[in-house]
């Protein structure tokens, strides 16, 4: 295996995995639920939509859930605070490792424009996917996976099977 410059200086993947597993275990011990991420983005999207079109958002079949009468502010939520912590923890890790490098992660021959367009398009598709599957890599694959939830394993298999199959078609982006 060739070692790339951008892949240097990180923890051994098994050490990182065990550390991540212990954080997840602690979460289950304290809360009874696991980690998450996409739920916080959904709430942010709902709040942004509500700022522009309050009526349509509150009556929307999906966003309406966050605006039922008597419901808390959608941002006063466990996962929103957790993701806030992810930003802070990630920043501390980046700064203490002196790894803050403004830039665009892409394959050696891929253009910045192509990569950013793909990041946006991939984000859209993935965003729809997280809502349909009710979670992402954190909530479904990691947390659901560790608790042996059947649907989470089905999700995980679908994610990786699709990504491996589709990788060939976007190889220019990453090669």
């Amino acid at each position, binding site marked *: 295996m060739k070692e790339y410059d951008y892949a240097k200086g990180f923890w051994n993947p098994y050490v990182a995995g065990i550390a991540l597993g212990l954080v997840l275990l602690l979460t289950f011990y304290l809360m009874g639920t696991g980690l998450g991420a996409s739920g916080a983005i959904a709430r942010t999207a709902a709040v942004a939509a509500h700022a522009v079109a309050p009526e349509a958002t509150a009556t929307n079949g999906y966003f309406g859930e966050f605006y039922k009468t008597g419901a808390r502010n959608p941002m006063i939520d466990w996962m929103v605070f957790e993701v806030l912590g*992810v930003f802070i923890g990630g920043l501390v890790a980046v700064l203490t490792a002196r790894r803050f490098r403004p830039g665009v992660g892409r394959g050696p021959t891929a253009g910045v424009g192509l990569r950013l367009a793909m990041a946006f398009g991939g984000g859209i598709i993935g965003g729809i996917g997280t809502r*349909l599957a009710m979670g992402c890599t954190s909530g479904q694959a990691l947390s659901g996976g560790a608790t042996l939830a059947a649907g989470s394993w089905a999700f995980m298999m679908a994610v990786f099977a699709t990504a491996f199959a589709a990788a060939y078609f976007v190889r220019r982006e990453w090669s």
Partner: protein
Amino acid sequence: MTGPLYMSGALSFTNSLWIALGIGFLFGFVLERAGFGDSRNLTNIFYFRDMRVLRVMFSAIVTCMVGMLILTWLGLFDYTMLLDYSLLKTYLWPQLVGGVLFGLGFVVGGYCPGTAAVGVVSGKLDAVIFLAGMTSGIWIFAAGFPLWGSFYKSSDLGRITLAQVFGAPVELLVAAVALMALASFWLAGLAEKWAPYDK
């Protein structure tokens, strides 16, 4: 004390939010240290260049899974409470279709939501754009909800674990997943040597 603490009423909602911040901090810190703040480290797995995503994720799943079993044996964790009240429900078809879309978004977009957050604080513009795309995708999902709202809640199998699907004891499933992980770690090493895209 026997966990889960919050579910048994040992923690207030306000305290749970402080815990959320702390847990998130640890989560973000470990994700960064794993190398997950850079889309190249995340997508190299799909080209068999660097299988760190598989190694990190699978060892995390096994660590937590085995840890939960040990805590249960020690009487420190109430596993049945988890199974009855908080296990993620299975909606088979929406989760499969969502998984296909998410997998496509992962390899095309280069991130998943949690890692994109770490990418943003690492200074990566593609992570910022990815999160903007995700937000837009969620708006599209909400706008089209009348079209797929009934599919969204279809094939509801409830809170069901793999142990129940296979009619086997939990301990056996845990052992099987751990063995699967070890086998995949071994295969990952072979895959990196193979690296079919770089020849």
